[in-house]
């Protein structure tokens, strides 16, 4: 479910309210609160002690819990967008190439022909994205930790194994795919991913040499060619 920018807006609103309330709670000395004093909160009148205890509950539990919930929408749903992937500069060559009308890579052909209308990275790589199963989430967090601690070498290399299921989930069963004789010949091997779809259909993304900083294609793939 795509909620657009609403969860982010709600997160910021809750954070601002929470920060204000935390400032207030941090200044309260509960031993000096006069329990006889009454505070009106519109619909009810509370003793000042009850009011400040409710305030602490809101500031230290309820509002932070709400902020974390809405912020996690971004970590689980927001990361599906291509823009989210390319915020890490090592992923930018893949996104730039995908949008290049002259590129012949599989990603670019899928993008150009509108075969995947949105969240193109996620649709093909959802077996290891941040929104997959527990193992997939751990893998996503590992990528995040490696990137932010700069414990990686450029160009990055996909260490896992790309499962053909990611291709077959759309293609298998379609008349076009079933009608190709060679697909039937190697069907079992394709289904168990012992034979890659890329063997016949070309590469999915630019080569590692093209993605290496300093290469002839690097500036173009980083979208920086026009900046010079």
């Amino acid at each position, binding site marked *: 479910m795509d909620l657009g920018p609403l969860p982010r807006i709600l997160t910021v609103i809750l*954070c601002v309210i929470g920060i204000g309330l935390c400032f207030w709670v*941090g200044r*309260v000395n509960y031993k000096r609160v006069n329990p006889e004093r009454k505070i009106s909160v519109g619909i009810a009148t509370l003793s000042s002690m009850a009011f400040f205890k409710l305030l602490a509950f809101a*500031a230290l539990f309820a509002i932070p819990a709400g902020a974390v919930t809405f912020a996690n929408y971004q970590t689980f749903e927001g990361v599906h967008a291509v823009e989210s992937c390319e915020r890490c500069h090592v992923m930018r060559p893949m996104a730039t190439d995908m949008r290049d009308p002259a590129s012949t890579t599989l990603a670019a052909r899928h993008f150009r022909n509108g075969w995947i209308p949105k969240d193109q990275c996620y649709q093909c790589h959802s077996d290891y994205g941040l929104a997959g199963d527990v193992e997939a989430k751990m893998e996503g967090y590992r990528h995040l930790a490696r*990137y932010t601690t700069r414990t990686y070498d450029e160009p990055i290399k996909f260490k896992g194994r790309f499962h053909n299921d990611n291709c077959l989930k759309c293609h298998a069963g379609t008349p076009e795919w079933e009608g190709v004789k060679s697909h039937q010949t190697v069907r079992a091997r394709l289904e168990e991913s012992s034979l890659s779809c890329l063997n016949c259909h070309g590469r999915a993304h630019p080569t590692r040499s093209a993605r290496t900083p300093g290469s002839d294609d690097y500036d173009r793939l980083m979208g920086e060619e026009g900046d010079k």
Partner: protein
Amino acid sequence: MTRLRLQAWAAILALLITAAFAIHPGPYEMAAFVFFAQPLFLIVFISYAWRVVKDLRQKGVL
């Protein structure tokens, strides 16, 4: 329960990181939220709950 100053400041720090992540969800902001702000919130929750339980025990409610 006397003061909740430490818990309040920890929550303010975690809320600031969360707001930064919501405004600009880049990789560094996301890492700060996932690996620092969320554990900090957990520490705040546990610490606050512990103070509440201690308070209730002192008053003989628990």
